[in-house]
């Protein structure tokens, strides 16, 4: 079915396949429609039906809060074309409140992929790492994510890539168990059945919390739990692009307890090669000290309390040559943005974030 969007003097139109999310259909056609989570939680992709009919999708999507039914508002990332629509003749006209505009010139157009999940690895009791081998090689920017749909589970889930390569057909992800989460349950069940591979559907790459060496910034990285995923990719890209010859990185990685840490060896290895450029703090919210715990942090510094508080204590004010990347639970990010702007005097265009939820 043909989907049209009119904005002032611009007119966009693209095809959406039956069942295909309208956001994905538009992005894939090269139109940078507004979105953040791409999975129904944030509400950023809201749009309005002006003419025609669509299926709204997931009725309980948290991102629907505040949508106005009487204006026929809906979420682009959940809605799709009705299965019974007259595919060749029906059209649908939509209104979108935000501008449809590029982020950077090197924006990558996301595509639908099939992939095979392999190499399940348990990083701790609640965290899994896995690879998805795609049907073709792709490029992505460090900090980006894909949405993944597992067989038999309704809807896509967003996961950020941990690895970085200029071009690759293998994406590495890290997954923090979400209690009673459908995808989490599926993943842990898969990880326990050794060696089996499973087909998944994916769409990506997505997201604008990206690292680009040409932007020439020091990096201030704050992760809550699995938020470390995209930041690992950023550190890796910075590493292979020689960024640390000229710029520094400070990473604060927040976890609850000593049982929740992972990637310590990888971080230690990186700090070992750039001891003057990279500083890593592992911040434990549930401990006041490491006394009595059997954990060797090596070159990494321990911190205690909330990661956002430690982050604010660490950052120097008036940084203009620093980009902050924040990834993890929305409350952590919300708690950081205001003081980063007001106290650290970081310009808002130097803050990039991915809210995981």
């Amino acid at each position: 079915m043909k989907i049209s969007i009119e904005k002032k003097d611009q007119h966009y139109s693209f095809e959406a396949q039956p069942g295909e999310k309208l956001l994905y259909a538009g992005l894939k056609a090269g139109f940078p429609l507004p979105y953040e989570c791409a999975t129904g939680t944030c509400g950023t992709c809201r749009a309005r039906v002006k003419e025609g009919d669509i299926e709204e999708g997931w009725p309980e999507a948290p991102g629907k809060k505040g949508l106005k039914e009487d204006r026929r508002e809906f979420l682009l990332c959940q809605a799709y074309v009705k299965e019974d629509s007259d595919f060749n003749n029906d059209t649908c006209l939509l209104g979108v409140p935000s501008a449809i505009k590029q982020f950077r010139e090197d924006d990558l157009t996301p595509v639908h992929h099939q992939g095979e999940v392999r190499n399940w690895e348990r990083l701790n009791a609640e965290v899994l790492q896995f690879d998805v081998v795609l049907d073709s090689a792709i490029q992505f920017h460090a900090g980006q994510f894909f949405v993944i749909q597992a067989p038999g589970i309704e809807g896509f889930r967003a996961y950020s890539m941990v690895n970085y390569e200029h071009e690759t057909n293998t994406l590495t992800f890290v997954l923090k168990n979400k209690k009673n989460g459908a995808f989490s349950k599926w993943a842990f069940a898969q990880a326990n059945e050794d060696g089996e591979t499973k087909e998944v559907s994916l769409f990506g790459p997505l997201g604008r919390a990206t690292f680009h060496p040409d932007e020439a910034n020091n990096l201030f990285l704050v992760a809550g739990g699995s938020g470390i995923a995209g930041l690992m990719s950023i550190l890796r890209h910075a590493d292979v692009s020689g960024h640390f010859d000229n710029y520094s990185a400070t990473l604060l990685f927040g976890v609850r307890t000593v049982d929740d840490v992972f990637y310590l060896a990888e971080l230690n290895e990186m700090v070992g090669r750039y001891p003057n450029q990279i500083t890593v703090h592992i911040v434990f919210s549930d401990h006041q000290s490491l006394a009595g715990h059997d954990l060797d942090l090596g070159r990494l510094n321990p911190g205690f309390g909330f990661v956002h508080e430690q982050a604010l204590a660490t950052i120097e004010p008036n940084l203009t040559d620093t980009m902050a990347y924040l990834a993890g639970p929305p409350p952590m990010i919300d708690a950081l943005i205001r003081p980063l702007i007001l106290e650290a005097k970081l310009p808002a265009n130097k803050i990039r974030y991915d809210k995981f939820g």
Partner: protein
Amino acid sequence: MNWKVACAAGDVAVDSMKRFDVDGVSLMIANVGDGFRAYPPVCPHMEEYLENSGICAGGVLTCDRHLWQWDMKTGEPQGPAEKPLLMYETKEEGGEVLVFIEQELEYEFDDDDD
């Protein structure tokens, strides 16, 4: 005349803003140093209440939800912001901030039509 008293000039510190209800119309009164500005209470992006999401610093208003920004004096968008702030006319008289309210200003869903 539709000039209405919104608040006392001393109610809002320089480089900050506060929400007031004026005859049933909710608005943000901002002190921009050499005067006051009055905006609708919500962010033009996703109608977040600026009382909660707005950050005033150095004459720039930032909404902490998606980091849209505006020049507080002119309401003009900066950076990723796509729409200007709507503004009511204001004046200061006898230590009070007055706002000219003809009708309540609201942001359109999409700027192209109806």
